[in-house]
């Protein structure tokens, strides 16, 4: 379930210092999210696609992720052209699709896909464990970092408990249907997981106390930048600055 699908690989993207990857992903996403020029978004999409290509990720798996994400975008294509005011582009029965609406839907599609592809290429190519260490380096509050890691750590354990309880339901011939029995059964399943997790969290806290926990979590340092990281980082940031100038350059001058 929580397989880190894109994490393992030996590409340049996989080797890049994860701190750079996270910061680039954040800045790039923000720029694309607020940009509104077709050219900028097209270049942005090309940037994301080239990262995917450099990372040598499975096209099949990436496309599968995109398909899921574009479900919501599909709704926008169904509704937006017909409700957005503007010059009529074509008619579908009684509905008029506006040119501006189509353009707007296209912008959203570009933005969404550019950002998602960049996240896959830059974030999903590091393990969560690595990202946890990165978050600490970029001044995310300590408690949030630990909350994040603990949550991820125990998802695996709880998923196993979930499978075991699902098996217990299966061997007693449980068949999910649209009825109260089904909803109640799932509520019991989640309730049982919650109770066990309460007990487990007590035990984990006890294990922390046994190892002398005094309110401080520790992490060991992991990262060191080399020349490859500095050069790649500089290139990536220059590209993003290029996008920014293309989008807002005229306003400044």
């Amino acid at each position, binding site marked *: 379930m929580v397989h880190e699908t894109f994490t393992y690989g030996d590409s340049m993207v996989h080797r890049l210092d994860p701190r750079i990857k996270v910061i680039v992903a954040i800045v790039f996403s923000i720029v694309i999210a607020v940009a509104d020029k077709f050219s900028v978004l097209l270049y942005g999409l090309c940037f994301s696609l080239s990262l995917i290509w450099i990372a040598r990720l499975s096209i099949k798996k990436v496309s599968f992720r995109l398909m899921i994400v574009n479900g919501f975008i599909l709704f926008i294509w169904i509704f937006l052209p017909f409700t957005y005011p503007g010059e009529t582009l074509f008619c579908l029965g009684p509905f008029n699709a506006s040119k501006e609406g189509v353009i707007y839907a296209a912008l959203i599609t570009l933005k969404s896909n550019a950002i998602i592809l960049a996240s896959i290429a830059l974030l999903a190519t590091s393990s969560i464990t690595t990202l946890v260490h990165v978050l600490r380096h970029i001044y995310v509050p300590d408690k949030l970092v630990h909350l994040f890691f603990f949550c991820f750590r125990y998802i695996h354990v709880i998923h196993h408990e979930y499978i075991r309880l699902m*098996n*217990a*339901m299966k*061997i*007693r011939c*449980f*068949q999910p249907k649209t009825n109260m029995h089904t909803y109640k*059964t799932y509520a019991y399943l989640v309730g049982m997981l919650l109770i066990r997790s309460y007990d487990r969290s007590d035990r984990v806290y006890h294990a922390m106390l046994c190892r002398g926990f005094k309110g401080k979590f520790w992490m060991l340092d992991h990262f060191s930048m080399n020349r490859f990281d500095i050069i790649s980082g500089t290139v990536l940031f220059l590209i993003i600055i290029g996008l920014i100038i293309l989008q807002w350059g005229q306003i400044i001058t």
Partner: protein
Amino acid sequence: MGTDNNIILELDDITFGYPSRRPVLNGLKLVFFKGQRIGLTGGNGSGKTTLFHIIMGLLKPNTGEIGAFGKSRETEADFKEVREKIGLLFQDSDDQLFCPTVAEDIAFGPLNLGKTQNEAREIVKKTLKTFGLLGFEDRVSYKLSSGEKRLVSLATVIAMNPEVLLLDEPTTGLDTKTTERIVGFLNSHTELSYIIISHDHDFLERTTQCRYEMAGGKVDKNN
């Protein structure tokens, strides 16, 4: 697959394992006849529990064929019928009980098989009586002692009226009294066929006719 009416299970050349680890089951063969009462032993990690889960369709073998009640079983739909006829007692009772009260836990299986609330209530009562647990209806399953949990787990299985039982370590950690109850139940229900995984040789001596052993991912007939 055999067409002999007396064959309950026929496993052929079953292999199961996780990538980059030694296979747990490796070319396993097993034929299990109606009326047989088998004790299954073997070291930790020899694949006994895995075998039970494969029979119930909870794990899918990498290769091999599973026949049960005269039909080949492959899909989830195939195993539904298997699960109506074979009852599995999990190694850990905490994996088996997930309802708030004992009555609801025991009624869960019968309700899934299409019984009405009233019929289910009757079954709960009858089953509790069998195990000397009358009055336990409204007890909270989660708070029972481990011996009581074991008996209630067995009761949830028996409530579905299975023809065959697969019992995974039914007596681990139980006191003599509870163990006696299980022995008594098994010996007084001669219509049941079963396989019992256990380290308790004394218990197997009293409840089974023959002993199989698991080793190297296969089942060996011992006697």
